[in-house]
């Protein structure tokens, strides 16, 4: 007994020893002790029956932090807001010592429930004043915001009413900036609605109606008095404005400040573009395709050093698997559609990182950058933590009670529990809340690696478990790196000292900006380091309820002198060359020059969109794959339209054939104008029930005109439906097509097909066909086959697969292919790609096709959509470009951590259950589906996993027994990026990932041609997929991709596509002469000239 104890003690000591050792690794930030700093602030909360999270929904939103030098001694002071306690002001005494002077300074506030804070010099006396938002008093009148005017002697006088800033709304925050450029600071007051969420009917759009009691407000500063100009300026202020963040900055680089408002709950966010005339245009839906749903805090800064502000918004998607499985639900498809149709835009449960495309559009790349999930998040701050010139990302998170814990929700909904909580119509809220689990969360920090890559910044030292809300950065010790202060709920606030300058040989340049006129701190000033294209905009109000050190601080990788450019709010410019770094530079607007910034010379466009295109429009049928195939995340029914080109009537002009969705006829577009002619009497129309998924013009019957093979695809039919019959139409030479009565591709296969290719593989002088099967309806994942169809010369086709290419049977879910002579033996080999497939090569040997076994590309398993060939390196052989799912996705796959699809009839009810799983670091496969979604498919799992807790650690092997797994079809994916396969001859290919920007969305169409006329072929790509479940989010970040060939297989992405910019879901790209025809799902054709 004693022995054991000793051993245990010893182990503990050993363990502890290890831990301390670990801690000694130098982290970027060092958490300072309150005893050292003197900052013992804690935002303590107590709830009771009358005031709690059920009565007041923002109960756990917490407080903010403001950093600024209130006594102009050069040291940044700190102000904390408290919800129930007193706000605190800590005077910086230097050397990280602070003194609480709140009471002496009369600045702790008299109103309950302070939220946001801004330090701003409102009266332009050179001293920072403090504006505090209050929003707690539920019934009473006691929630006016407070404005503490700095008396210049470390005391303050509350004068909100005098400035007309004593707003009575449930204010979250306020931002001060000069929107009308009249030289003084105006204010945007962010007010959260008081109305109960359950009381809203989504169909009723309240947005345009101004709320008398609250609502967001834009206040113009008119000679020191603030006047509400919201309506005139075009600012929404309704009862559905659940604003949690107001982020100001210039998003279109026109020198005028724009506004991003992040709204919680069902209301969408707002993006106000400054019209430069005192008004704003709200353009979010035009510019940003997808946003965070319950948006919380936000920040705006340049993450890729392209000189444009990007926007980051926090949400609540858990990053840890177990939490995801216990606290999260996602909206179902119908609810999502209802939201969209009711005017709330495309909102998703995840953080969003909106990359500024510099052309009035944004691409949401949070999933690509890996920053989409950081749990219940509040303050997000984009700043350079380690002075490497790249801005990193900090996210303060935590919710004091896990309000959405699914087991808790189920538990309290039980009769006996509810009865014990409710008596005489009175709810015992205290007890109701007491039983909610409370779990601290680690704050998140991400390091910016460049090229839009962010990784968990483990060495930042910021991942402390806490309930954190607002946060602010500032250089508290004036050493040239940014320190961080975090306001925590029911625990002491964090003061982190940044050790970068001490511990590394990094460099910095700090600026103190003296604004002219009444904007003394020069809010809105933009500073650029020309050498590195680093840029910062001086906007102290950021993140969540917080306000930053107003001195722009640049981290620099070298100590070389730099050139800087300062564009002041007035538009004046200060331009300095050979500025020594590692210093603090004081600049004044009054010294700046009145020079209009020269417009950067615009690069010449390669592409020009034609205004008048075709009169054709593709119409997608209303089919929701998820209503039938509940566990699938992506629709397979919206993969059209595809185009084929041929001169069908012999008039010398190319005509187009465009496939129709189910219920729409295929369409011929005739001649130069691509005019859609009537198909009413055509055989096409008679077969309009089929979904055309691919087509091919070829001379089937050797009569000199081009006949047409059309694949019938989609998933909207049941297995063996005649609508899956592929169609061969014979051309009478005048462009009239008559349906052949052959059963294609074979009488025995009536499944969805996706691709048809021709080649004379039996070398008898006519064109034979390859046809690929895409999917077996209701059996997603079941093996599909490719077919070789031999032509008898008259257009009669015979399935010879069994004899000549037996390995095509069951090869996979084929999406595309190519005939191409890979071994230069004079006959064409076959390459096919597909979903959950590698790039498969079938070697043609005298008309017999054998699957190449030692093909490394076969192991490159992807969700391939399309393949194209071109000699990209001008070495005489054809290289391949293959379009994949892309990297901007919740799905991540690699060799070590593949995605696996297990499909089987697990519950033996006659239906295949496709279970998608990912491999975790521990080597186990876990399902993507949440417990209730899995139960929705397989009812019996509800008994196996009676609650969420029991499910949260269950791997695939825990969910399904070995017996149930028997006979399962198992497929996997290990690469989701779109690639170039460089042909090195003799079946050898080098895999090269396409640039990051080409990975923003699934690629469905590829075209290669020398568009810029410089002698080498360039690439354009098209994609996007809107038919994705809300939990994975739609794929909409691509606007078409133009990749300029720079030689040596290097391709350059152009931000504005050199004119090739297309919205929508591109499904095909065809080049005719010098025109690019872009086919989009459920949309018109877009035509570009180059």
């Amino acid at each position, binding site marked *: 007994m004693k022995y054991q104890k000793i051993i245990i003690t010893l182990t503990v000591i050993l363990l502890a020893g290890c831990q301390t050792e670990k801690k000694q690794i130098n982290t970027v930030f060092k958490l300072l002790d309150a005893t050292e700093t003197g900052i013992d602030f804690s935002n303590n909360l107590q709830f009771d029956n009358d005031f709690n999270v059920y009565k007041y929904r923002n109960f756990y939103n917490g407080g903010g932090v403001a950093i600024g030098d209130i006594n102009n001694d050069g040291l940044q002071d700190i102000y904390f807001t408290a919800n129930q306690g007193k706000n605190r002001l800590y005077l910086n005494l230097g050397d990280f010592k602070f003194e609480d002077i709140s009471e002496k300074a009369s600045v702790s506030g008299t109103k309950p429930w302070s939220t946001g804070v801004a330090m701003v010099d409102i009266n332009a006396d050179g001293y920072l004043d403090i504006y505090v938002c209050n929003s707690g008093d539920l019934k009473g009148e006691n929630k006016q915001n407070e404005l503490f005017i700095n008396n210049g002697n470390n005391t303050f006088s509350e004068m909100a009413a005098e400035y007309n800033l004593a707003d009575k709304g449930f204010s979250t925050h306020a931002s001060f900036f000069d929107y009308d450029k009249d030289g003084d600071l105006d204010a945007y007051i962010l007010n959260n609605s008081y109305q*109960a969420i*359950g009381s809203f*009917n989504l*169909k009723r759009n309240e947005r345009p109606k101004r709320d008398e009691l609250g609502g967001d407000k834009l206040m113009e500063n008119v000679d020191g008095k603030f006047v509400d100009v919201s309506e005139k300026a075009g600012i929404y202020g309704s009862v559905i404005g659940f604003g949690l963040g107001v982020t100001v900055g210039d998003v279109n680089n026109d020198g005028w400040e724009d506004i991003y408002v992040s709204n919680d709950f069902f209301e969408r966010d707002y993006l106000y573009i400054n019209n430069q005339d005192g008004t704003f245009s709200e353009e979010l839906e035009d510019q940003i395709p997808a946003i965070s749903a319950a948006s919380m805090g936000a920040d705006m800064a340049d993450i890729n050093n392209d000189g444009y502000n990007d926007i980051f918004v926090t949400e609540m998607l858990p990053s840890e698997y177990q939490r995801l499985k216990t606290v999260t639900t996602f909206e179902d498809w*119908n609810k999502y559609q209802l939201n969209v149709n009711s005017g709330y835009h495309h909102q998703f449960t995840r953080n969003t990182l909106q990359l500024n495309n510099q052309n009035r559009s944004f691409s949401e790349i949070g999933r690509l950058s890996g920053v989409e999930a950081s749990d219940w998040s509040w303050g997000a701050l984009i700043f350079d933590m380690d002075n490497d010139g790249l801005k990193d990302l900090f996210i303060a998170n935590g919710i004091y009670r896990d309000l959405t814990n699914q087991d808790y*929700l189920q538990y309290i*909904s039980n009769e006996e529990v509810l009865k014990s909580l409710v008596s005489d119509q009175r709810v015992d809220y205290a007890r*109701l809340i007491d039983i909610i689990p409370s779990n601290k969360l680690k704050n998140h920090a991400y390091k910016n690696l460049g090229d839009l890559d962010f990784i968990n910044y483990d060495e930042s030292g910021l991942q402390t478990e806490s309930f954190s809300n607002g946060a602010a950065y500032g250089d508290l010790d004036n050493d040239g790196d940014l320190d961080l202060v975090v306001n925590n709920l029911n625990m002491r606030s964090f003061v982190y000292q940044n050790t970068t300058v001490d511990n590394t040989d990094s460099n910095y340049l700090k600026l103190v900006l003296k604004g002219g006129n009444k904007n003394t701190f020069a809010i809105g000033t933009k500073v650029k380091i020309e050498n590195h294209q680093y840029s910062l905009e001086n906007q102290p109000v950021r993140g969540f309820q917080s306000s930053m050190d107003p001195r722009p601080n640049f981290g620099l990788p070298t100590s070389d002198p730099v050139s800087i450019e300062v564009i002041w709010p007035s538009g004046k410019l200060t331009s300095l060359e050979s500025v020594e770094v590692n210093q603090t530079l004081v600049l004044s607007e009054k010294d700046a020059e009145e020079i209009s910034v020269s417009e950067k010379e615009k690069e010449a466009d390669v592409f020009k969109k034609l205004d008048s295109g075709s009169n054709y429009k593709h119409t997608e049928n209303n089919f929701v794959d998820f209503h039938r195939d509940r566990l699938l995340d992506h629709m397979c029914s919206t993969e059209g339209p595809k185009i084929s080109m041929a001169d069908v009537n012999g008039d010398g002009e190319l005509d187009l054939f465009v496939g129709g969705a189910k219920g729409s006829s295929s369409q011929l577009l005739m001649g130069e104008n691509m005019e859609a002619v009537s198909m009413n009497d055509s055989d096409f129309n008679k077969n309009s029930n089929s979904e055309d998924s691919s087509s091919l013009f070829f001379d089937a019957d050797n009569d000199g005109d081009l006949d047409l093979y059309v694949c019938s695809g989609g998933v909207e039919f049941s297995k063996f439906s005649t609508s899956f019959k592929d169609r061969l139409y014979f051309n009478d030479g005048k462009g009239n097509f008559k349906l052949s009565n052959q059963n294609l591709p074979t009488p025995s296969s009536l499944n969805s097909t996706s691709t048809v290719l021709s080649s004379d593989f039996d070398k008898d002088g006519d064109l034979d066909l390859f046809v690929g099967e895409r999917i077996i309806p209701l059996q997603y994942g079941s093996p599909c086959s490719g077919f070789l169809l031999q032509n008898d010369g008259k257009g009669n086709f015979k399935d010879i697969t069994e004899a000549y290419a037996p390995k095509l049977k069951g090869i996979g879910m084929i999406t595309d292919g190519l005939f191409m002579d890979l071994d230069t033996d004079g006959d064409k080999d076959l390459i096919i790609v597909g979903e959950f497939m590698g790039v498969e090569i079938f070697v043609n040997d005298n008309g017999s096709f054998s699957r190449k076994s030692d093909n490394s590309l076969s192991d490159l398993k992807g969700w391939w959509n399309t393949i194209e060939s071109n000699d990209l390196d001008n070495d005489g052989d054809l290289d391949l470009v293959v379009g994949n799912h892309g990297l901007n996705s919740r799905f991540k796959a690699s060799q070590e951590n593949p995605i696996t699809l297990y499909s089987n009839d697990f519950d033996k009810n006659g239906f295949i259950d496709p279970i998608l799983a990912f491999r975790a670091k521990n080597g186990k496969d876990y399902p993507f589906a949440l417990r209730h979604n899995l139960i929705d498919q397989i009812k019996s799992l509800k008994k196996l996993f009676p609650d969420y807790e029991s499910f949260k650690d269950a791997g695939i092997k825990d969910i399904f027994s070995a017996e149930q797994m028997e006979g399962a079809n198992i497929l996997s994916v290990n690469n989701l990026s779109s690639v170039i396969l460089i042909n090195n001859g003799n079946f050898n290919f080098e895999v090269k990932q396409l640039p990051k920007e080409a990975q923003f969305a699934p690629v469905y169409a590829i075209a290669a041609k020398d568009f810029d006329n410089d002698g080498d072929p360039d690439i354009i790509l098209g994609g996007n997929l809107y038919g994705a479940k809300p939990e994975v989010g739609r794929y909409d970040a691509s606007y078409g991709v133009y990749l300029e060939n720079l030689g040596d297989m290097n391709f350059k992405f152009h931000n504005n596509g050199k004119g090739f910019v297309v919205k929508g879901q591109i499904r095909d790209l065809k080049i005719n002469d010098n025109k690019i025809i872009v086919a989009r799902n459920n949309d018109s054709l877009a035509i570009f000239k180059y």
Partner: protein
Amino acid sequence: MKRIGFVLIFALITLYSCEENTAYKEQLNDPELFHSAMKNLTDVIVYDIFSPPVASRVYMYPSVAAYSIMQKAHPEKYNSLAGQLKELKAIPEPDNENIDLHLASIHAFTTVGKQLIFSEQKVRDFQDSTYQNLKDKGLPKKVYQASIDYGEQVAKHILDWAKGDLYDQTRTYSKYTIRQEDKFWKPTPPDYMDGIEPHWNKIRTVVLDSANQYVPVPPVEFNLTAGSEFQKQLMEVFEKGQGVDQESREIASFWDCNPYVSHHRGHAMFATKKITPGGHWIGIVSIAARESNNTFDETINAYTYTSIALFDAFISCWDEKWRSLVVRPETLINQHIDEQWAPLLQTPPFPEYTSGHSVISRAAAVALTSIYGDNFSFLDTTEMEYGLPARSFTSFIHASEEAAISRLYGGIHYRMAIDEGVTQGQKVGEFIVQNLRTIK
């Protein structure tokens, strides 16, 4: 040898001479035993949240299991259900004289029920405490074992029968895809839940020939023009559907029977659970059976008969709901009359026509009337557990009529769905009464 024999005989005599504890027998004859088993099932149905049609299935199969065994105890009084219920074959004969058929009946009931619900432990707890209580009251081990074994056997028989009803298959049938035209049903506030059980008409009926045996007249033609019949009915819901007076509000709440009502407070949410419409009528059966001093077997008969009527009535009603796809009044009123309007009751997540409560209440009332007669007045205390006062009725039909009209007062149904629902329920009920003979 002899000595040992003597000792044995002595011991036996001693045992017999002790007072035999037969209290268990009384217990097994007490109809309250069955009532408690049914109550346990209702509680679990509420706990697990089953939609009204699915709940009716969870009541029916266990009841049929219980009845089938009970019938073996009283063959002179009751007919077998085999041959009367679609595809139901005769249950195995009890082949052990130790079997107590009442205990076997309880065990079959709870075992089938346990399979159909999710929270098995709650049923297991009931079984354990019930059996322990019987054992404490002298239930001999061999009787216990034989009865449990037989109960298991019959439960398996009934579950095998249930497997053929397409319930498992319909779980993965397509969800309903929303159609945009105004006249078609759309999900409703506050949760905009997907439509429940669009394929319930595929479920095998037990007495009805088919789901569409009694197709109601088509709904009034959709027309929002002032003065049209449809518009008038819509306006009636608008005017009455928030409860015009105390009485109508009480009626609406009393018959709400919504198994899942959600409450939102910001990010915080909780739901309240209640019995389903079918569950309410099961409650009425218990009241009627007690009021009539029904024996154990009579009690099972009443429950079973009613549960069968409810089961087929739900299938008939759901067949029409997902055929006519009529939009809920709340959707139209918000869209065309008053954005702010909300019905007194939360609109349940499935199409409007016909009213489920109207159909199933009437079918159940007709079934109960065939057992207990007209003018059976009773005090309905079913909802007291859920905080609603008791209401008194002069007959089952009276109660069913109030249940029907309550949907108008609750703002969730047009009058047509109520009137035609009652008609539909009457037909279903009559057909069952004519074709299902339990009592000889």
